[in-house]
């Protein structure tokens, strides 16, 4: 079945298309991100990682997924 009305979101500066009501948890699973090594922001608001299954992504959401890299 072809899914209509896909919505556009931005993840780490890149545009992605998802189905409506896609949860943040589904996105993290799809991207294969290890939850214990990342932090997530949606529209500059930090997300409690315990709540990601309850958060449904909306059109135009800007998501940032960060982790630690080498630094001084």
């Amino acid at each position: 079945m072809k899914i209509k009305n896909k919505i556009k979101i931005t993840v780490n500066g890149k545009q992605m298309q998802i189905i409506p009501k896609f949860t943040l948890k589904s996105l993290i699973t799809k991207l294969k991100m290890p939850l214990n090594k990342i932090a997530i922001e949606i529209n500059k608001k930090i997300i409690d990682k315990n709540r990601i299954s309850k958060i449904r992504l909306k059109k135009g959401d800007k998501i940032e997924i960060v982790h630690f890299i080498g630094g001084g």
Partner: protein
Amino acid sequence: MIDKRFKIANKIFKSRLIVGTGKYKSFSECAKAIKTSGADIVTVAVRRVNISNKNKARLMDYIDPKKITYLPNTAGCFTAEDAIRTLRLAREIGGWKLVKLEVLGDKRNLFPEMIETLRSTELLTKEGFKVMVYCNDDPLMAKRLENAGAVAIMPLAAPIGSGLGIQNKVNIKIIRKQTKLPLIIDAGIGQASDASIAMELGCDGVLINTAIAKAKNPSQMAEAMKLAVISGRKSYLSGRINPNLFGSASTTNKGII
């Protein structure tokens, strides 16, 4: 003389050498250098995950945050708001409250923007962060940071990554005299003797990244820095002789033939 423990925000650390994790050729080279350095604190930065290459190696896979204290920094931040956003994210990754604040004011010389740094220190402290502050070597600003709640004062020796060594020993000495907070030289170390000098001036610790990461043999330089920090600290605690303009013979003239 028995040394007092190296304590930051009520936590005791074994090593007085803090090591940065940037600029290494690989994570394994970085991990090896950290091991030989003996450091129990490493600085780390917060950046976007690469979503198109999910299998890319991660720092946390090479340096275990359960075994070594991660000190998240605010590298690349130019305003208090940027710094706070970055450190809130760092805290969300794994509950880190001990942080390194670094708010820069100029992309070329990488000097700290002290007005924003002071403002950030106040705001972050109010939010419960324990803030170790990268700053210039101005004693007045160091005092203001202390009053704002900083848990460690971290003046530069010279510009970040320059390897020029300690350019203003007098200011570092004055800051040492006025503060009981941990005083850590944060930038500009080039070689092991610079680290020893920092410790001989009475600093509590040294933070080094480039001088180790960009050395031809990072692991060996890490060990040299470890020994230099220990050596400089012991020298400081031992009480040096007064410098004299003229010589003082080591051998007595008594019984001379």
